[in-house]
């Protein structure tokens, strides 16, 4: 199957699905879907000629066939094989992109938190969905976002009303079951957090099975004044998994949004994180860690758009690259003319543990205001030889010394995780991956 074929298949799928709709085809949400499909048709899948995809070639992805509506016999027993120990909170499971109510648990009271599947919310709360849907993720230039928008029905809608501190975290586990066939999922998540409210949300992606998996995820956050959101994205997918994910955030004044993106495993990963700070005295934090090995590819594109004065953004991404893996970091900072007194800091640090691994970094700063503090720095190097020798001279083998140093390098990003179960899970996952060849 070539590029055009997957595209043709998807467009045909869309028409078929549309044909089965009743009144919904006329809904505002569906109007957006139609426009997105048209846009997808026009854009097509990107090639490396596209500036934003220069180092991330999706050719192998679009040349494979995927089942977008796979129904597999994934069960609670299968889930037991992939535990996250001590997991507590609101736990939602999506299998092959479809919500599984049987496996999921919602513990927070309705007054604190509403969690609905996207499809459910579109039916019961169309006005809310219409108000927020696709206001933040731009599909005009991104074929994958356009594609996700066109098919948006699976995923979750989370609504935290005003003045609520949500005690229990929300953990959404997306599992693609590729044991019998190539599966694709396109989750669409919308998280709306009211004024002065606080919530922690983790998205955890996993695949099982030997076949290929494709996740094309879009998550939108609307963060109202003085709200505080901790967002975690954890990727532990297979070597045959393709993951294209976009997280788009709109922040109002005095809000705090913190994103922690950890890619422990995955064959081909592209994460877009776009934050627009549309209010004063707000703070955006972007932390990331990626540890590709073998022939894995991890690409993080981040963009923070300072549209209003007096706000801060901090960014720290760290990469550990092994084998023949490749990494990309592209960090954009926009400071608009109005956004005086902006502080924006960006740093990307990488360690190459093999001579065949490579990393491409590109900071992009566009600053239109004159009274701002911005800094950026990227480093790519090897482990410190002096430190390695020092450890060896104390009896620690070279491999252990490397692993200890590497783990120490990663630790400050791991420590930013505030959901204990997820942090422990990550600590183990990352330690294991670091000790692996």
């Amino acid at each position: 199957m070539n590029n055009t074929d997957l595209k043709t298949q998807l467009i045909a799928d869309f028409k078929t699905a549309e044909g089965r709709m009743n009144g919904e085809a006329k809904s505002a949400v569906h109007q957006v879907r139609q426009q997105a499909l048209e846009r997808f048709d026009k854009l097509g899948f990107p090639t490396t000629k596209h500036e934003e995809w220069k180092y991330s070639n999706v050719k192998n992805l679009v040349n494979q066939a995927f089942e977008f509506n796979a129904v597999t016999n994934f069960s609670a027993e299968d889930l037991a094989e992939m535990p996250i120990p001590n997991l507590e909170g609101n736990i939602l499971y999506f299998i092959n992109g479809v919500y599984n109510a049987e496996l999921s648990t919602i513990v927070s009271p309705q007054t604190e938190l509403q969690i609905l599947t996207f499809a459910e919310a579109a039916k019961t709360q169309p006005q809310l969905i219409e108000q927020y849907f696709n206001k933040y993720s731009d599909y005009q230039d991104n074929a994958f976002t356009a594609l996700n928008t066109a098919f948006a029905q699976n995923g979750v809608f989370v609504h935290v009303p005003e003045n609520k501190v949500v005690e229990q975290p929300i953990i959404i586990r997306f599992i693609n079951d590729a044991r019998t066939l190539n599966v694709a999922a396109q989750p669409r998540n919308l998280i709306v957090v009211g004024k002065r409210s606080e919530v922690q949300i983790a998205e955890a992606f996993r695949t099982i099975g030997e076949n290929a998996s494709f996740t094309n995820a879009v998550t939108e956050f609307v963060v109202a004044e003085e709200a505080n959101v901790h967002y975690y994205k954890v990727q532990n997918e297979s070597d045959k998994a393709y993951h294209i994910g976009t997280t788009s955030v709109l922040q109002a004044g005095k809000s705090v949004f913190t994103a922690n993106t950890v890619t422990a495993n995955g064959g081909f990963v592209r994460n877009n994180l776009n934050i627009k700070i549309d209010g004063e005295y707000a703070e955006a934090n972007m932390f990331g860690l990626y540890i590709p090995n073998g022939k894995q590819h991890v690409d993080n594109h981040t963009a923070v758009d300072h549209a209003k004065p007096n706000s801060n953004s901090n960014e720290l991404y760290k990469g550990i690259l092994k084998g023949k893996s490749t990494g990309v970091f592209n960090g954009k900072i926009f400071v608009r003319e109005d956004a005086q007194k902006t502080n924006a800091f960006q740093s990307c640090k990488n360690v190459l543990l093999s001579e065949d691994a490579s990393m491409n970094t590109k900071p992009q700063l566009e600053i239109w205001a004159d009274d701002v503090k911005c800094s950026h720095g990227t480093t790519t190097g090897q482990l410190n030889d002096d430190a390695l020798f020092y450890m060896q001279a104390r009896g620690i083998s070279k491999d252990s010394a490397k692993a200890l140093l590497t783990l120490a390098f990663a630790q400050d990003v791991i420590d930013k995780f505030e959901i204990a179960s997820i942090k422990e899970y990550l600590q183990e996952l990352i330690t294991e991956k670091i000790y692996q060849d």
Partner: protein
Amino acid sequence: MLKISNLQAKIGDKEILKGLNLEVKAGEVHAIMGPNGAGKSTLASVLAGRDTYEVTGGSVDFDGTDLLELAPEERAAEGIFLAFQYPVEIPGVSTTNFLKTAVNEIRKYRGEEPMDAVQFLKMFKEKMKIVNIDQSLLNRALNEGFSGGEKKRNEIFQMAVLAPKLAILDETDSGLDIDALRIVAEGVNKLKSPDNATIVVTHYQRLLDYIVPDFVHVLYKGRIVKSGTKELALELEERGYDWIKEELGETV
């Protein structure tokens, strides 16, 4: 315990050790002195196994083992300890965690059972007294932001924990004030026993007021050119190195 014969080593194209001989027996303290650039630190690094130096000739026998055949971590497990002139700062790894790993890897090498947390706690407490080091320092990242004195005390603390057969102190006195010097030297003296040996590499005599050597050697241009007792160190302090160069027939 240690027998170095005709040791030659270079870094890049530069020959630094040019046929060095030295024998150290259990229970002895040897001081190696010499002018800058004589090869003192090179000798310490070569014995510890630093691979930036290439050994081009000679042999090093350590209690019947060919030391030059071993990786640095194997030498440590065999009982060699190098106290670094410039201890390396390692962010993100605490001293205790680092030492627990080191101790258990060495025990594994020797076919011994790993120590558990309780045993470590007990041992660390005993050893901390020897160099008067504080627990809070050990909880911090290894050497990160430590003062010069704290770094050197930490080196001796590590030495106490690892209990080596042969300790090589590379310019341990550099960057220390007199009080810190005294604490470090007392620590070294407390660790002395008839079964272990110490090589003190130093530029100045003052450390030898506190760690009294049995033998003093002058290292010059990659060889040991003169050996004596502690009086030799005093003489060097008083007269410098020129008279040694003259004895060697060099014009000063």
